[in-house]
């Protein structure tokens, strides 16, 4: 069961990192669009 939760934690962590990356990417694209 704890192995299961470990995998879940890893999955959530990866998703969080991907999300932060995309968030920042979109902000940069918005900056470019404004120019």
């Amino acid at each position, binding site marked *: 069961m704890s192995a299961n939760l470990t995998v879940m934690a890893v999955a959530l962590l990866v998703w969080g990192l991907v999300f932060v990356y995309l968030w920042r990417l979109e902000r940069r*694209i918005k900056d470019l669009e404004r120019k």
Partner: protein
Amino acid sequence: MILRILLFLWLAAGMVAGFTWAPVVPVLGNTTRVFYFHFPAAIVTTIAFGWSMVHSALYLARRDLGHDDHAAGAAELGLLFCIVATISGSLWARAMWGAYWNWDPRETSIFFLFLIYAAYLALRAAIDGTERRARLAAIYSCVAFVAVPFLIFVVPRIYFSLHPDPLLGQRGKPDIDPRIMLVATWMLAGVTALFVWLLSLRVRLGRIERARQEF
């Protein structure tokens, strides 16, 4: 803004539900949980490649470079999701069938799809000139459109006779627990939204790039 955060919470909730709330299929045990990543990725792969083809045909008909951005972006993202679906499926196959790869019909068709779109992107990289690249890539995409139904529906049947499938048909049969189906559908909705977001970023980048070039 709100939508992005909602998407984050949506997918996170789906993962937590998949790992804690949904039951497991008796034979499969904890490998059931791969399903929540594998199934959305596979479906979104299909959606992405279909989207790419539609926009390739639209480009040939209308000659609007926006369609080319959609076609290229969807192909790139489709390849990405295809990799996720293949790897997750392969891990599951290792756990259940004992081998990462055994040319099961599903594995065969997804691998061929991967090859087609890898070739599509290789072709794009080799063509100079925006409009020429868009036109020739769209032509290739339309030819590939002939191959895809054959790869998905016909070839697996021929290979079936070559390699009798070891065991276990497809999941998603009606006798599956409704909670599993709910989480899978939930994840599918979330991953599709993620795909739309990613595609919009790619299309906007393409537009900026072209504006820069004209400038």
